[in-house]
């Protein structure tokens, strides 16, 4: 099957030209080789092109980069975007990924010049970002039961949307009763609960399917079918080659959108020039505040414990002179270091952390099962993440989110307590 469908079926005309120079529009093999060939190093001869290429080529090149980068950034690209918007987008995206050649950013925004710069930028993107692999991964037909491994989508800083302007469906002509809001909130909670039940049911169905089809897949690593594959077996007549590609792509989109719902808050629009920097600074500030409180807390704790420890040591000096103490002390130090090493790993970004979606595969731990580990471990070119790891990370994330929520609620409580003092004649007893 064709893993790459540029622009979901929409062809970019210029792609072929640029592709000849840079990389294949098809599968990856040979891409690296071809890239190597065209990189103009300082000693390499200039590529055999006219000195001033007609503007058409650089324009197309800009469009190519735009199309590719838009796919990476998850947006819907439209050919009708004006060229200067497209160019601006490409420049922003390159900046975002850390491309630092000033010549590129100085290129004119009518697209009339710059093919050499664009070629350099493109090559850099291919290597640095693994652009082709990302596109392939994005555009591939999803034959498995995919689910996202990370919660990255949920972490997006709030992209402002015009929810503030949208009035709810039934025209609120004037004031809104707070009880209506309470009711909406209750419905929301109920909705989550039903979603939960639905998910659990889906899990059960998935698991049954996986169990029932274990051992049938020709790929030993997978071992069993997915929903789509089972459907394919049951109803092969529904799946012509072309419709398979389309439907599976649809499924894939559905799978991804299942997990990628971001709460777009109704915050008023930020008027500053760059919401990106603001939101990042906000996050940094909040984290710094939390860490500083923690630091102060730790400082107190440590000083006080140290004092107590010194006291104890003084009174038992003679005992501690003996050798056992230094030996055990060393052992204790090592064990503490190990413990903290774990922590340090968690605090640093993992280089090979899984992102995106993975195919759900049931691997039973039962040694006697047919699809045991023995056969599949032998060749393992595909990276596999175990659900236990993902669960652990999710638990950490859940814990920190709950803390955040509790902090917010605490803050509200304090403010409301202050307000309560202003209300006459009423005493509030919290639950």
């Amino acid at each position, binding site marked *: 099957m064709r893993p790459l469908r540029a622009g979901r079926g929409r062809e970019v005309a210029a792609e072929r030209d640029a592709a000849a120079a840079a990389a294949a529009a098809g599968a990856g093999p040979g891409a690296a080789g071809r890239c190597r060939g065209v990189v103009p190093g300082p000693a390499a001869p200039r590529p055999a092109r006219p000195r001033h290429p007609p503007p058409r080529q650089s324009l197309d090149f800009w469009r190519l980069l735009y199309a590719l980068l838009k796919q990476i950034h998850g947006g819907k690209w439209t050919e009708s975007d004006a060229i200067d918007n497209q160019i601006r987008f490409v420049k922003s995206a390159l900046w975002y990924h850390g491309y630092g050649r000033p010549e590129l950013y100085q290129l004119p925004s009518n697209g009339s010049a710059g093919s050499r710069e664009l070629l350099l930028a493109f090559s850099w993107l291919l290597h640095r970002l693994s652009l082709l692999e990302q596109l392939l991964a994005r555009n591939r037909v999803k034959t498995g039961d995919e689910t996202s491994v990370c919660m990255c989508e949920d972490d997006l800083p709030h992209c402002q949307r015009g929810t503030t302007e949208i009035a709810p469906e039934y025209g609120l002509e004037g004031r*809104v009763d707070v009880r209506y809001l309470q009711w909406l909130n209750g419905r929301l909670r109920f909705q989550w609960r039903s979603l*939960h039940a639905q998910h*659990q049911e889906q899990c059960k169905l998935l698991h049954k399917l996986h169990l029932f089809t274990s051992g049938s897949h020709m790929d030993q690593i997978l071992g069993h079918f997915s929903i789509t594959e089972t459907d394919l077996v049951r109803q092969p007549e529904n799946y012509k080659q072309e419709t398979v590609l389309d439907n599976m792509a649809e499924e894939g989109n559905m799978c991804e959108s*299942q997990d990628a719902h971001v709460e777009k808050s109704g915050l008023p629009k930020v008027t500053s020039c760059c919401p990106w920097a603001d939101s990042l600074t906000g996050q940094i500030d909040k984290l710094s505040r939390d860490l500083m409180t923690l630091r102060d807390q730790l400082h107190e704790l440590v000083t006080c414990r140290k004092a107590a420890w010194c006291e104890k040591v003084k009174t038992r000096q003679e005992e501690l002179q003996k050798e056992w103490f230094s030996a055990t002390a060393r052992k204790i130090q090592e064990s503490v270091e190990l413990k903290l090493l774990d922590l340090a790993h968690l605090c640093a*970004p993992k280089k090979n952390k899984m992102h995106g979606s993975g195919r759900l595969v049931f691997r039973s731990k039962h040694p006697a099962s047919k699809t045991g580990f023995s056969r599949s471990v032998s060749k393992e070119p595909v990276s596999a993440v*175990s659900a236990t790891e993902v669960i652990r990370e999710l638990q950490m994330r859940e*814990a920190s989110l709950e803390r955040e929520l509790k902090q917010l609620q605490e803050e509200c409580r304090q403010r409301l307590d202050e*307000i309560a003092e202003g209300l006459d004649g009423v005493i509030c007893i919290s639950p």
Partner: protein
Amino acid sequence: MLPAGCGRRLAAALSAALGEGAERRRELEQRAARSRALLRRWASEEDEQLQPEAGSSNGHENRPSPKELEELELLNRALEKALKVRKSILKTPLEAQGVVGEKSADEGPAPKSAQEQQVPASVEDVPVTAKVKTVSKKPASLKKPSPYKLRAPYRTDPDVKKPQRKAPARCVPQGPRTAGKSSSKGLLPCKQGRSHRTAISARDREACAAAEPQKTPGFSRSALDEQQSFSVGDSTGGKNSVAAGKWLFDARKKSCGSLGESSKKEDPTTEGALGRSTSPRTVTPQEKGCQLKLPLPYRKAYSRNSRAWERCRLCQTSADAAAARNRFIERIQTTFCSPMPAFSPAEIEEELKVLQDVPSLLSQYVEAEPADHPTLQREYESLLTLEGLQTTVSQCLHKLQLLQAAVESQMRLRPDCTGDVGNCSPACVPPRGQTCDSAGVLAVPLLCYSSFQELRDLFALKLQVSMLHQEIALQKVMMAELLPVLESRLYPEASAAQLYRAIYTQLCEGGKRFPVLVRDELAD
């Protein structure tokens, strides 16, 4: 009542959230229907036909349905009667507190049980959780020209003036009702024989008192679920979610449930029990499943695809390709602007994402260190750990400073930002599915689970995290909107207390529990 703008915005935010949730449900339902169809056809089981409760859909309506209004009507009548009963009890002399307490305890259930028959009969078919929610939220009047008028039990002026001192003393949880439930109803002192609260709190009690008797089995289960359905770490979580599932999908027959349980425990290759629990046939779904084969064109395409990916991977990892790549990257990076910030914007975001969880993780470690130690070694160990944590904290703080500096220098380098918010879009949407290590992740990465429980935990946790994200966002919006309303006294004075209580509930208790407002009247 809330000022117009504020209320509208909040309603819009909540409605948007509801809309998203409804969409998610629809998509999930589609997938589930597909899976069910597959399994049903395969195993020839008729009992896979499951319809989610009709009442639980309808995410689009932003006002309660007529059925819900009807229920509300009935509940209100029940409340009225309860209030009358209470008033008649209160008329007895005040000294016999204990006696009265008991008597009201006896008489209380009696009239309520009389209504018990009436109310559940009419509302059986509606999901009880909807009732619970509507009662606790008390949407008595939902929009200005409402078909449903505010009724007497919801009257908010105090109807009895009694010394309030007695009030806090009695927090008697009703035994039969609050069995194990610590959620909204249980916390309110449910029934005071002659408590002397104002009608504000009286309303709560009556609400819960009326709600409690309508205890269909599903009700208690759903209330339990309220507490427990999201305690995923809990080992009984699985059971409860299954219970929740059973409640919502009433039509499910036992065999499905048992199939699920049994397949969980059994070795996938055993046949017997599975075969026996379905209709008596010679071939079990398991056996059939093992013999399935994918159609030939698919297999051909699949193997071609795997080979292509394999070639691609080899190409990527070959040594000279890697060397040439690195040479190129180094050379081009020498031409970048000279004081390049330490982190690219993408890297800054990545680092921040990792650091999000760190404070809470570190606090957990700190709290895990006990205050007292039996032996000297333990104390030493604890001390070393704390010091290590201190260093980690300062390292993280340092890193944050570096990141902040990087943000600022990147902003300076930024290609022209015209000030239009829309143009900053690429930076707002980090690439999804970023593959950092290309060699390992060319083909589809696998997510392996080893048991049914793991799969369920995985999905439950993901949902929980999404829900928390949404809650936090909504909390922030509501704080921004509602607190100023109270602080600036923009409301009619008469409704101050209700508004306060509603806002308190929403902001501080997540809408689940209510504070008690007591009128400060001294009877001297």
